[in-house]
């Protein structure tokens, strides 16, 4: 029970952070694209609950949830989104390129699937350097599984037996196009043809279930030092990019989404989540204040760190 409370706390924290982004967005304090994780928090929180400090996660442009689930600092997060000098990457990254190396969050890319081979390469380095017991998580969406580099990465990781968890957050959409209009292949058959164990979880709304189910996948990577594939079904509540909803656009059904939302523990106010709201809101207000009061970069910062 204590653990369930902790997992729900983290999910709620991510959601409230993103709801704050939605609230702030019309003020133009955040002048960059935001790809919100609302609806997908349980995947990040549940999987990261099984990770150890030495593990690395390679994320993508929809990365707020993983960044926060791994303990990425909140004031520097808001500073980064607002283009402040105190941001994690001094305002040069923004929402799409979050990173917190001290927390094992390695840089996020805005090009779909492009960080998958980075996880494989870091795992290759770990093998060459005889670092044992480390897990390298390649986190990507279902659209990324269509990219050639995904197949290439599965092949290399399997061939060299590397400790990579291929984690597919399957929200069923690539921007506005559903999987049925994009994929002629069976993901399971594709992945297993490379000899990887294939884990598949439908209940991606429940962080406790995700934690329990992904534990075996993570431990198999860690213990056996071999790649494993984990697909977790999830749902993106908001538009692909931006703070709004877009059910009116007609490419997906609000009714179907409501079936999913009915199972979302964060949408069922309980004593567990309600008691945390105030605490989290205070933390968020402080973080936003820190960002708003932080200096913007100067012209001298423009050409630093180029080569």
């Amino acid at each position: 029970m204590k653990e369930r409370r902790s997992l729900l706390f983290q999910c709620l924290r991510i959601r409230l952070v993103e709801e704050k982004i939605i609230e702030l967005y019309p003020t133009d304090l955040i002048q960059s694209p935001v790809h919100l994780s609302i609806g997908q928090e349980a995947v990040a929180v549940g999987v990261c609950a099984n990770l150890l400090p030495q593990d690395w996660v390679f994320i993508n442009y929809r990365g707020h949830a993983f960044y926060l689930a791994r303990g990425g600092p909140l004031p520097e997060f808001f500073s980064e989104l607002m283009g402040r000098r105190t941001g994690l990457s001094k305002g040069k990254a923004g929402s799409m390129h979050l990173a917190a190396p001290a927390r094992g969050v390695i840089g996020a890319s805005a090009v779909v699937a492009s960080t998958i081979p980075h996880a494989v390469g870091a795992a290759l380095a770990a093998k060459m350097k005889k670092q044992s017991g480390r897990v390298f998580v390649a986190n990507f969406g279902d659209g990324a599984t269509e990219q050639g580099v995904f197949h290439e990465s599965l092949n290399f990781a399997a061939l060299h037996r590397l400790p990579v968890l291929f984690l597919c957050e399957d929200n069923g959409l690539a921007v506005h196009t559903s999987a049925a209009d994009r994929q002629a292949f069976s993901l399971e058959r594709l992945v297993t043809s490379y000899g990887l164990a294939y884990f598949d979880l439908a209940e991606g709304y429940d962080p406790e279930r995700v934690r329990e189910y992904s534990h075996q996948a993570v431990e198999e990577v860690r213990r056996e030092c071999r790649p494993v594939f984990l697909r977790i079904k999830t749902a993106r509540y908001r538009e692909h990019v931006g703070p709004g909803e877009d059910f009116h656009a007609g490419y997906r059904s609000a009714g179907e989404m409501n079936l999913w939302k009915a199972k979302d523990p964060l949408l069922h106010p309980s004593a567990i989540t309600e008691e945390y709201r105030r605490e989290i809101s205070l933390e968020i207000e402080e973080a936003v204040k820190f960002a708003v009061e932080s200096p913007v970069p100067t012209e001298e910062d423009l050409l630093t760190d180029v080569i």
Partner: protein
Amino acid sequence: MSSNSYRGALAIAMRRAMEDHEHTFIIGQGVTDFKGLFGTTSGLFERYPSRVIEAPLAEDSVAGICIGSALNGMYPINTHIRADFGLLIFNQLINLAAKYRYMFGGLFEVPMMMRMIIGRSWGQGAQHSQSLQSLLAHIPGLVVVMPATPQSILASYRYAIAEHRGPVIMFEHRLMYELEFEDGPPAPEVPIFGSRLERAGDDVTVVATSVMLLEAKRAAQYLEKQGVSVEVIDLHSISHPDYGMVLESVRKTGKLLVADTSWAAYGVSAEINRVINETDPSMLKAPSVSLAMQPAPCPTAKVLEDFYYPDVYDLVDAAARLHIGRREHGVPLPPKQSMRDYYKHFKGPF
């Protein structure tokens, strides 16, 4: 292998990389086979079996794997037996490797080397011959070098591996692999940046890249006997050349000829002319001349290929024209002879 041969210098550079730096590894197609990437990686797999990795035919992911390994403390050397195959890594190279340091505000660095070999002659054709230095030198965050001598290879590969903390692309030229070199001027002080003054002269400045340096030196030797004094600069670092050296030379001679291994449009010659124009266009006493590949994909037939690439004949003609100031310059030209025939060793198959 001799350190005075281009191939020998490459083999030595690779061996030293493995010997001196335990976190270096080599990955690419053919690096473990019996040919060992034209002999430049031969024997290394036997000595370092875990650090010389035969790559699947999957350039895109292998480049990404190099980035990931660099993030975890390794130094990858990724080879491309033809630079043309390197086009398959442009997403990882341009969108990721070139941006990792800047985009994350200095949180990460990805020290790594890409060896790309430019093919030429023996019917290399349209897809085994491209010289892509200006495409990559266009991108902030990348260091692009075209070593033209064994000394340049030994100095710049050592520096890139031991000292530089970002991605470096080395364009090697297949036509030079078989050649023995005499000692030339030393590499620049920071060997992956800067240029080399190969030969001093007063009448015409020739700025050359890669194998065109050899042709420029042959042209300069020939023209010396005809009373024309040619200064030859090996541009060497394409992304970070020594513009001061180029400008100083052109101020002295007033005449500029750029001889590059690629196309002229938006290329090395365009860039050097831009810098001169933005500095002081009056230093040019005559319109500058660019010698480059013809504006077409590379043909396979030898007779067409000989028209396609500029050579010592074209260099002498252009330099004499610049010096005398008219097309009918009166300087006798060397016999038209294809470079492949001159550098006799280049007989296929490759």
